[in-house]
């Protein structure tokens, strides 16, 4: 049976293309229908004709779908019409009728249209929001503070936190949740008329989506606190998701904005969980499940004292050791692979402790630190061999620190020794002075040193490398804009990875890596990576450090994958490392709250010293924010989320680095709450995966690339 849904919207100018992008990725067929108005008198324009919203013809038309999705919502509870036409569908409850998915529906009492109010089911158990009595009809959520801006269209910042308890699954998960919002920018959850709900919950009802055989079902509520420190509680009549017969009342899913699902400017869709959950509830069985995986950049590094970290080199390696051991075990249990971009260049070009090679072998560092680093390294190598922590090169020592083609010239480049392009071989480092395609090259024109190179589908004969070779020495200025330089750089990377003890330099069978700065270079680098056996590389859309290149529109270049990326650290990269969830003295971006602008109405910063709940609030918002971006990578972009272990884990307690967050009862450095980003993030995503078994599975970057070829080809 082909999965098929119907999307109903008001107008394309506000239609979020992520709706269809996600459905494409899942292999769910869809039909787009438009409503001619927001009122009950609207007609629904379908590919098979125009039907009145309450007509039997429309009802019959809808019966070919697994689900009908309402795409529109409102930020203004005073609106009198938004999806009024859908009121009739609340009564289309026969087994033949599809499931109806209402995300962040507008059903406030400001709707005065008599046809709406007279057709609104009298037994509907969720209290209709009253804009003149918001406090009495809705529950202010997440501390009740106002977001600085429309909370429904935020993307990678300003998350609103929620730990949600899914009752049937008996699972808690942090997912961004807003049931309704208003012009005051406060997020709200719904209130339940418990009397009506009791009646529905005891009424037998037959429909394929009524898994408990009852007419009403509470699907999800705000999860009760797990600590007495967390005083953010909700009354027992508060709900965030409800099934009324075959109609699902669900939180906000996608912004009502013309976000393009362009491969360059995808805006993160932070509420996408609810769309996936709604589709699963509706029994829409996708053709494809989506692989969930995560990457790290710089799996082993340690900050020297000049960065003023709270821990010594040895202590940093200690918390990395415990955390990587935990992550490797997690990957084993879940069947995923946590990619690591190993800092290469440490052997030949930089011996700092931020380099994988440097912290292992630079004897100017304390032996105890190097020994601790070696234990981390051995976990990574063993994990690479067994497939749990595959590693590839990630080089900040070239291109002015910006990776592949990070600058026009990599000044003072120090190359590797041996192999085809290392010392002492004198090899080209720039394209020849003359380059002619072989099919138009006259005989006897190219000199004896001519080389044929192929970049994509362009083949050229190059000659006259006078002044454009490496010489026999080690150090020279390397122009980065050509295939000869790319070959030298990538060959050096592979050589160093092998010297470090990895059996290969491209994440084992995944044949992949993530480059420094997400700079994948241009065509010449992609060509060379293919020559060395790579299948793909993580890449920003502007894929050079000097911003002169773009990736192809579909992010696949001659079969080579240029996988998109979203960083989900708990601090900004410029601040070097995380001081925790929040630290008043932290620099800009130096804690999670500052980095993601999570301090709504100062409800964290103003209470940090006096109210323990502030830490739990910060914890919720951070987990929601980062899990959302990761899920967006999984479901919308088919890309990779990643974090930097040393940078993000600097706020753990050394006494038990992988302990769960416990508020103020377990402290990390700076006397702030301990927080292990790796543990919390992976455990929370695991809860999401368990909630969505028909839509998600723990996979690998190979699964992602396979799926990209399946749905993007």
């Amino acid at each position, binding site marked *: 049976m082909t999965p098929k849904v119907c999307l109903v919207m008001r107008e394309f100018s506000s239609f979020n*293309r992520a709706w269809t992008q996600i459905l494409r990725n899942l292999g769910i067929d869809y039909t787009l229908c438009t409503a001619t108005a927001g009122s009950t008198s609207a007609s629904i324009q379908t590919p098979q004709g125009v039907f009145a919203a309450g007509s039997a013809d429309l009802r019959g038309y809808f019966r070919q779908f697994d689900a009908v999705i309402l795409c529109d919502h409102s930020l203004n509870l005073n609106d009198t019409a938004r999806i009024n036409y859908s009121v009739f569908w609340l009564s289309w409850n026969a087994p033949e009728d599809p499931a109806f998915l209402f995300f962040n529906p507008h059903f406030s009492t400001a709707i005065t249209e008599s046809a709406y109010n007279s057709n609104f089911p009298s037994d509907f158990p969720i209290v209709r929001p009253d804009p003149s009595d918001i406090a009495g009809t809705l529950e202010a959520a997440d501390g009740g503070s106002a977001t600085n801006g429309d909370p429904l269209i935020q993307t990678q910042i300003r998350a609103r936190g929620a730990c949600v308890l899914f009752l049937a699954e008996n699972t808690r998960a942090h997912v961004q949740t807003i049931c309704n919002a208003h012009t005051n920018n406060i997020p709200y959850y719904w209130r339940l008329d418990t009397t009506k709900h009791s009646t529905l919950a005891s009424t037998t009802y037959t429909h394929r989506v009524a898994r408990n055989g009852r007419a009403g079902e509470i699907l999800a509520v705000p999860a009760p606190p797990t600590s007495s420190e967390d005083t953010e509680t909700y009354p027992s009549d508060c709900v965030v998701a409800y099934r009324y017969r075959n109609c699902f009342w669900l939180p906000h899913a996608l912004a009502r904005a*013309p976000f393009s699902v*362009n491969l360059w400017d995808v805006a993160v869709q932070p509420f996408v969980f609810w769309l996936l959950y709604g589709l699963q509830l509706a029994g829409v069985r996708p053709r494809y499940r989506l692989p969930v995986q995560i990457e790290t950049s710089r799996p082993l590094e340690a900050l020297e004292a000049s960065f003023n970290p709270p821990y010594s080199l040895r202590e940093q390696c200690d918390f990395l050791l415990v955390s990587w051991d935990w992550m490797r075990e997690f990957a084993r249990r879940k069947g995923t692979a946590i990619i690591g971009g190993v800092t290469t260049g440490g052997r030949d070009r930089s011996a700092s402790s931020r380099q994988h090679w440097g912290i292992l072998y630079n004897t100017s560092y304390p032996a105890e630190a190097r020994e601790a680093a070696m234990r981390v390294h051995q976990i990574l190598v063993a994990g690479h061999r067994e497939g749990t922590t595959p590693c590839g090169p990630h080089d900040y020592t070239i291109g002015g620190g910006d990776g592949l083609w990070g600058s026009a010239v990599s000044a003072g480049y120090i190359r590797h020794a041996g192999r085809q392009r290392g010392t002492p071989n004198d090899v080209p480092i720039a*394209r020849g002075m003359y380059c002619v395609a072989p099919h138009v090259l006259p005989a006897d024109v190219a000199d004896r040193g001519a080389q044929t190179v192929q970049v994509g589908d362009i083949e050229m004969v190059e000659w006259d490398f006078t002044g454009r070779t490496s010489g026999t020495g080690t150090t020279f200025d390397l122009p980065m804009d050509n295939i000869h330089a790319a070959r030298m750089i990538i060959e050096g990377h592979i050589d160093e990875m092998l010297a470090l003890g990895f059996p290969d330099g491209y994440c084992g069978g995944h044949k992949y890596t993530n480059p420094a700065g997400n700079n994948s270079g241009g065509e010449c680098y992609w060509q060379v990576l293919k020559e060395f056996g790579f299948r793909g590389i993580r890449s920003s859309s502007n894929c050079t450090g*000097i*911003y*002169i290149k*773009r990736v192809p*529109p579909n992010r696949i270049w001659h079969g080579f994958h240029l996988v998109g990326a979203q960083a989900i650290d708990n601090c900004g990269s410029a601040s070097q490392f995380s001081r925790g969830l929040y630290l008043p003295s932290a620099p800009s971006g130096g804690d999670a709250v500052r980095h993601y602008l999570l301090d709504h109405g100062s409800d964290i910063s103003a209470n940090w010293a006096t109210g323990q709940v502030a830490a739990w609030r910060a914890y919720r918002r951070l987990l929601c924010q980062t899990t959302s971006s990761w899920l967006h990578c999984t479901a919308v972009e088919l890309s990779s989320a990643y974090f930097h272990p040393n940078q993000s884990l600097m706020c753990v307690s050394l006494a038990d680095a992988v302990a769960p967050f416990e508020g103020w009862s377990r402290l990390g450095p700076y006397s702030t709450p301990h927080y292990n980003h790796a543990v919390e993030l992976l455990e929370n995503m695991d809860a999401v995966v368990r909630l969505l078994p028909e839509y998600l599975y723990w996979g690998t970057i190979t699964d992602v690339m396979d799926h990209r070829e399946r749905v993007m080809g």
Partner: protein
Amino acid sequence: MPVRFLKNASELADVSWETPLPVQVANAKPVPADTLLVATTTVTADANRDLLGSTSTELPTLDGCMQYRKLVWFYFRAGADSTTYRILARATDHNGAPLGAGWQEIVPATTLPGAANSWNRIEIPATTDGYYDQYRIEVQRTAGSNYTLTSKIVGVR
């Protein structure tokens, strides 16, 4: 035993050079055109902002376009606020490296046609052929308020 097939609904024919098996071409594009970009841009007063929101002046909006004779830019503008657009182009070598810094300006700052909520179409280049490797398409609001510009660019071989 020759392989035979039904030809012209009534004639049974042997497979041969003269009468090959009838086949339907699969996986071939009916038109030599590709969708290259779909983007929603907030048009601001910023100078040098391209359709992808970047103000890095060396960064192309589109790369790898050598195979396209022409680009066709369709757009829907939500506002009528005075706006100019500018189109830059350049060629790269076979490594993908631009032949030099800067750009060839193939359309100088020009008023962006269209009223609020209007559909429009611009050919790049307007005359002759393109075959440039990289294009940079900039939009700048010169009066009024920010608005959204939704674009689609098709490459035609």
